[in-house]
């Protein structure tokens, strides 16, 4: 690179197309979309129409290059989160930052990286710090473009001669981000300034070399520098592989053809999304709601103003118009809070995008075009759009995951009505409990822990079959739980067992996918803190069409155990909890049992021999449980997915147990029991309007716990429209608000 090219203050030739600056290109692109509703104003897909085979070949080559980059570069990482679980993805972007194509993996970030590139363009990085061949940039600032700052992004500009063709982008989820508490989804920060290392769209290298000062800064800012360093090399290597692939395509096809291809493939993605909406859904209005509780009252690790219990509310309304426009509104959402489960609009768009790409358009070209085809409203001041840079988003996924279950359910209603039952799904399982913490590991080294077994929770029940058991996560369709031995290398905790957790799935005609449980024993550490993070006092994963929600979580940790003495004496020790009402963990170990519904905690100290139960959630159920095939209930009991006593209580299935402990259906008894259960439904149900009348009295008399009253009050305050609907539904005075207890 010529010396003069690097000097600031020296007028450098524009790097955009046709002698334009990047900002000029971005302004033109947005103006054209605003005026025409089409990407870059494109009317005809002339390349696709004139030479469709060539067009598809270019897409296949680019897509192949991206997947190849992911599958190869992930082997550089030493982090099981990246290498085993696959928490990375790559994408290629236009000079303006619009995604053209993407790899597999955590594709939620395809849009967040787009936001980050656009941030650099709007802030004129072309002039300062300059964008040149061989440069390397990074970002993890959720306010710019990310979900939370543990998802670290790398960008490499791809040039052809002196012109920027586009950007290669890659993201990995790092083990630790140097937050106030260890781990990569820190539950504990109450402001941005505790979320950890912030890399706000930085230039971190040139001539394909990372600046030493950047490396030193990061190594000294996170608890796991070796993993950090190798993750960064993973991302850079992947971006360089993409650069090579793009250069080969341009050499083969010509620059003008490739430029035209990028424009057309995004516009095709936009049109395809609208086509799929019209093909798969019904125009109209869809509504769903989701909730999450942050239980921080009396949590001594937090500042006093953050020691409160709060309920988060995600009202999800989607309107599909006659033109196939898809509009998502979360009007009525609850406010941001002094916890780390707030989200930026970039995170919300990322979540919307990742779910739509898995549901509406899995068979089409997935890229920034889908984003252009949707509109959204995340109200200012809410958890979904805090409009306050100081707000913590360290564990944004905490509510992002439950919140977007509503989108799955409302799409399921459309797919059902159209007869596309192969696509219908109830709510996916929560990626919880998050086993997180840090301290000193079994090798005497500093460690940070976030166990990514959470990548494999239960899927939602389908319209034609049960949900997938311990399969994936909403944010990574290719999730993997990784071998226990891998986690034992990283974490000073031995696995005593990992097995199916019964009754985690939401019951229904088709049940949700099951979760599982891992029982861990703290081992060879002198300094370890661990926390629980998951749903507990609220259900999170709703059923649909009469299906029940997946089970809500609980905590069971045991401190000061007699486990090591038991093992020394050759006595039995637990390998599972199994049934919390007849806990094997409780029965086989003495100690201080934290066995309760406190499922979100600040990091607490653990010692060698202490036990930590981490159980992963199931998915929501679908349909009336009395319509479930009794043979499937029999199978669930025999395989440990359902506790035997619930076969009758939930499903009305009578089972006969043989001497070997195996169960089989009593068909006659089942028929009788199901008849009786329908009679019971008739006897104890009431007309909905009678229920509304009694519930109205409860609302008027404010007989609700304070966090819920506070949630309703704050939602009404933030949204006059939601307030009007709430007051009208319960026939309340037009200025109604709940009275609250002291201090609220």
């Amino acid at each position, binding site marked *: 690179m010529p010396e003069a090219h690097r000097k600031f203050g020296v007028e450098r030739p524009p790097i955009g197309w046709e002698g334009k600056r990047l900002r000029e290109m971005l302004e033109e692109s947005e103006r054209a979309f605003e005026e025409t509703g089409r990407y870059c104003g494109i009317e005809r897909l002339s390349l696709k129409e004139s030479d469709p085979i060539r067009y598809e070949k270019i897409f296949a080559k680019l897509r192949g290059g991206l997947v190849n980059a992911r599958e190869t570069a992930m082997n550089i990482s030493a982090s099981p989160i990246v290498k085993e679980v696959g928490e990375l993805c790559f994408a290629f972007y236009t000079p303006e930052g619009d995604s053209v194509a993407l790899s597999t993996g955590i594709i939620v970030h395809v849009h967040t990286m787009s936001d980050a590139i656009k941030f650099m363009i709007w802030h004129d990085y072309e002039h300062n710090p300059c964008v040149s061949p061989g440069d390397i940039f990074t970002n993890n600032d959720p306010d710019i473009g990310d979900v939370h700052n543990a998802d670290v992004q790398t960008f490499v500009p791809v040039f052809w001669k002196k012109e920027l063709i586009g950007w290669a982008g890659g993201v990995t989820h790092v083990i630790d981000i140097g937050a106030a508490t260890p781990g990569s989804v820190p539950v504990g920060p109450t402001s941005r300034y505790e979320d950890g290392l912030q890399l706000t769209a930085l230039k971190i290298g040139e001539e394909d070399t990372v600046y030493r000062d950047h490396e030193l800064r990061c190594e000294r800012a996170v608890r796991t520098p070796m993993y950090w360093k190798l993750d960064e090399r993973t991302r850079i290597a992947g971006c360089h592989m993409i650069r090579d692939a793009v250069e080969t395509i341009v050499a083969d096809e010509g620059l003008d053809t490739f430029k035209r291809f990028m424009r057309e493939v995004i516009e095709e993605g936009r049109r395809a999304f609208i086509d799929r909406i019209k093909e798969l859904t019904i125009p109209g*209005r*869809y509504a*769903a709601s989701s909730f999450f509780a942050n239980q921080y009252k009396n949590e001594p690790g937090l500042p006093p103003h953050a020691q409160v219990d709060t309920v988060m509310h995600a009202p999800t309304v989607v309107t599909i118009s006659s033109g196939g426009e898809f509009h998502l509104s979360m009007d009525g959402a609850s406010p941001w809070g002094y916890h780390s489960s707030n989200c930026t609009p970039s995170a919300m768009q990322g979540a919307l995008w990742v779910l739509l790409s898995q549901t509406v358009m899995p*068979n089409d070209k997935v890229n920034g075009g889908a984003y252009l085809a949707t509109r959204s409203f995340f109200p200012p001041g809410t958890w979904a759009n805090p409009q306050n840079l100081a707000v913590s988003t360290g564990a944004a996924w905490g509510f992002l995951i439950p919140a977007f279950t509503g989108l799955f359910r409302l799409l399921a209603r459309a797919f059902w009505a159209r*007869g596309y039952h192969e696509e219908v799904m109830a709510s996916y399982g929560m990626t919880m409990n998050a086993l997180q913490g840090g301290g000193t590991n079994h090798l005497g080294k500093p460690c940070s822990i976030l166990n990514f077994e959470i990548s494999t929770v239960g899927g939602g029940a389908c319209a034609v*079959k049960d949900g997938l058991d311990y399969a994936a996560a909403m944010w990574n369709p290719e999730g993997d739980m990784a071998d226990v031995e891998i986690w034992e290398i990283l974490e000073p905790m031995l696995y005593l067992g990992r097995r199916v957790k019964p009754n985690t799935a939401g019951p229904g005609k088709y049940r949700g996918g099951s979760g599982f449980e891992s029982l861990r024993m703290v081992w060879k550490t002198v300094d370890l803190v661990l926390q629980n993070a998951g749903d507990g006092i609220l259900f999170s994963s709703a059923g649909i*069409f009469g299906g029940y929600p997946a*089970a809500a979580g609980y905590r069971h940790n045991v401190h000061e155990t007699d486990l090591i003495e038991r093992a020394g004496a050759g006595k039995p020790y637990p390998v599972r909890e199994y049934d919390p009402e007849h806990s094997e963990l409780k029965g086989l170990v003495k100690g201080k049992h934290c066995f309760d519904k406190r499922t979100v905690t600040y990091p607490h100290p653990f010692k060698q021999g202490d036990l930590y139960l981490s159980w992963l959630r199931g998915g929501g159920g679908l349909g009336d449980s009395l319509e479930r095939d009794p043979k499937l209930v029999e199978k669930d009991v025999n395989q440990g997915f359902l506790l035997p006593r619930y076969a009758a209580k939930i499903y009305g299935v009578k089972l006969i147990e043989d001497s070997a402990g195996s169960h089989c259906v009593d068909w006659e008894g089942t028929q009788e029991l199901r008849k009786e259960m329908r009679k019971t439904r008739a006897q*104890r149900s009431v007309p909905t309007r009678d229920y509304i009348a009694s519930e109205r009295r409860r609302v008027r008399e404010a007989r609700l716990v304070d966090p819920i009253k506070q949630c309703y009050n704050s939602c009404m305050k933030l949204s006059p429209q939601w307030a009007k609907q709430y007051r009208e539904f319960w026939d309340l005075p037009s200025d109604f608000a709940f009275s609250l207890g002291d201090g609220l």
Partner: protein
Amino acid sequence: MTTYDIKTLENLWEGKLSAGELRGIQSKFKDRDRFWKFLDYCQARVPWTEKILLPLQPHLYIVQKPDGQRVVKCDCGHEFGDYRNNWKLEARVFVRDSDETLREIYPALMHSDPEWMILREFYCPGCYSLLETEMVPPGYPILFDFQPDLEVFYRDWLGKAL
């Protein structure tokens, strides 16, 4: 264009396809005539004659009455009234708002705290099928899940008058 014979679709809707067959359908482009075949399938299986305009879920349909009304109707024959109103308001409901009733479905500790979240079950007053559940905090309005724009759907998307 992708299309399937009615036997394959019946097996799909009745949950009888193998995992491989199901995966094949999921991976292919969609068959554009699916809706009409699904309507025929539903119509043949209900014990009444009103024309089904839109299946809403496993038991409920929007149907055209002879007098021109469009109502939500259960496959058992019970009618919930105009489809533009929330059918749940005309259903029967049982609310699990205690540990005792929640534990009929979930083991101890594996359900919500009923002070914070209740479980509403909406039944058909005719057949007592469980049609929908809601997991909401006490005091939360009953959700109107889906309000289809039937006119636009038929006229603009399907190209047929209602």
